[in-house]
C-alpha cells in the first residue's frame, strides 16, 4: 500500500475537517473494500478518516414500523438484530449473505452504499425498500442516492450517518452469487409496501443498481411467479463479462425475481 495518514475523529465536525484537510482524503469504515482496493494500488488516499470512533453512528433502533441503522453498523449486526428480523427479515437475510463471516464482522452498511458497487447487495435492498439515506447535511431517498457505477449523490465532505428503512408488508431477496467473490451475479430484491411493489436489481446493470418497471407493474397487478413470465426483460444496458453475458443476466433477473416472489 502507498503511505497514508490515519485519522480517527470523535465527531462529525472533526471528520469533515479531516476530510477537507487532506489532498485526497477518503472515509474509512469497515474497510473491507477500501483496504483491498488500496492494496491493489487502485486507490491511494492521502488520508483515511475512520468514522468508527464517532459516537452514535453504530447501532440499530426501531421506531414504530421504521428501522434506523447507523452507518457503521456491521453486516453481522444487521443480520443478527432482533428488530431487523422482526420488521424486515429480508434485509437481515441479505446482510447474512454478504461476503463471509469475517467480512461481515467488519464491513458496514454505510461503507457498502457509499461505495455503490454495481454487484453489492445493500443497494438493491435499500432501493426496493424505499429507504432514506441520512447524512450529516440532509436526507436523500434511495431513488436519488444511487446514481450509477460506484457513483452516489454524496457531495464532497458529506458523510452518511444512518439509513432509515420503512418496514415492508413483505419482502424477499434472491441472489445468484458469483461463486468466487460471493458478489451478486444477479440479485433481485422484491418489496411489497402494501401500497405497491418495488423491485430492485443488482449485479446486472451497466449503470449499477436499478428498479425494474416491468416487474414492478406486473407484481403490483398480481403478486405471483406467473406474473413474471409475462414480463419482457431486455438485455439492453446489462453487464456482459467473463462471468455471464447480458442475455444470461436478463434470464437470471427473471429467475431470481421468481425465487424472491416464491419465498415471500
Amino acid at each position, binding site marked *: 500500500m502507498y503511505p497514508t495518514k490515519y485519522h480517527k475523529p470523535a465527531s462529525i465536525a472533526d471528520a469533515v475537517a479531516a476530510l477537507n484537510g487532506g489532498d485526497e482524503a477518503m472515509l474509512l469504515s469497515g474497510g473491507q473494500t477500501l483496504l483491498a482496493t488500496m492494496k491493489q494500488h487502485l486507490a491511494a488516499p492521502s488520508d483515511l478518516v475512520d468514522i468508527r470512533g464517532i459516537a452514535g453512528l453504530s447501532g440499530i433502533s426501531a421506531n414504530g414500523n421504521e428501522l434506523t441503522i447507523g452507518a457503521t453498523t456491521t453486516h453481522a449486526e444487521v443480520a443478527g438484530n432482533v428488530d431487523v428480523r422482526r420488521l424486515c427479515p429480508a434485509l437481515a437475510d441479505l446482510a447474512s449473505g454478504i461476503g463471509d463471516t469475517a467480512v461481515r*464482522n467488519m464491513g458496514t452498511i454505510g461503507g457498502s452504499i457509499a461505495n455503490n458497487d454495481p454487484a453489492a447487495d445493500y443497494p438493491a435492498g435499500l432501493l426496493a425498500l424505499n429507504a432514506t439515506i441520512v447524512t450529516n447535511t440532509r436526507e436523500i431517498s434511495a431513488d436519488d442516492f444511487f446514481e450509477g457505477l460506484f457513483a452516489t449523490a454524496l457531495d464532497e465532505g458529506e458523510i452518511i450517518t444512518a439509513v432509515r428503512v420503512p418496514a415492508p408488508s413483505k419482502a424477499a431477496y434472491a441472489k445468484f452469487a458469483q461463486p468466487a467473490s460471493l458478489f451478486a451475479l444477479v440479485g433481485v430484491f422484491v418489496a411489497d409496501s402494501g401500497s405497491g411493489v418495488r423491485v430492485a436489481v443488482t449485479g446486472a446493470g451497466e449503470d449499477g443498481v436499478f428498479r425494474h418497471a416491468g416487474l414492478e407493474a406486473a407484481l403490483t397487478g398480481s403478486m405471483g411467479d406467473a406474473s413474471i413470465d409475462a414480463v419482457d426483460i431486455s438485455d439492453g444496458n446489462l453487464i456482459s463479462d467473463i462471468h455471464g453475458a447480458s442475455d444470461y443476466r436478463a434470464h437470471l433477473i427473471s429467475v431470481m425475481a421468481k425465487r424472491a416472489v416464491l419465498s415471500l
Partner: protein
Amino acid sequence: MTSINMNVNGKAVSGDVPDETLLSEFLREHLRLTGTHIGCDTSQCGACVVHIDGKAVKSCSTLAVSLEGAEVTTIEGLANGDLHPMQVAFNDNHGLQCGFCTPGMIMSGVDMVKRYKAEGKDLTSDAIRAELEGNICRCTGYHNIVKSIEDAAAKM
C-alpha cells in the same frame, strides 16, 4: 508513524508503525507472531483470520492503527498450556495436509463454535461448510476440516 497499544494474546503490546500497516503485518513483522499466515492478501482465503474483541476478522484487511486498545487473539494465543480442543481435533482428525490454511481454519472454527453455542444453534456439518466460506484450503482437505470442527464442537 503512529504509536499503538493493544492487547495480543493476553499481553499488552505497543509499537510505532506506519499508518498503512495491516494488522497481519504488525503481528508478523513487529511482534514476530508468524502463526498468522498471509495466503492471498486479497481477503479471500482466510489464512490470516484472528479474533478482535472476540470476533473473527481477516487481519490482512484491517489497519493496525485502527485497533488502539483492542483485544487480539492469534493462533499462538489459543493454547493454554495444553492445546486448545480445536487444535487437538485438527490433529486427531487429520484436518490439515500442508498446514498453511490451518491457523485461519482453527480461528474460524473456534469462532463459529462459540457463536453457535451462544445463540443456542446446532452447528451441523452443512452449517460448518457454509461458515467456512471465507477460508480456503488448496489441499482439498475440507472433509477432514469439517470433521475436526464437529469433533471440537462436541468437546468445547
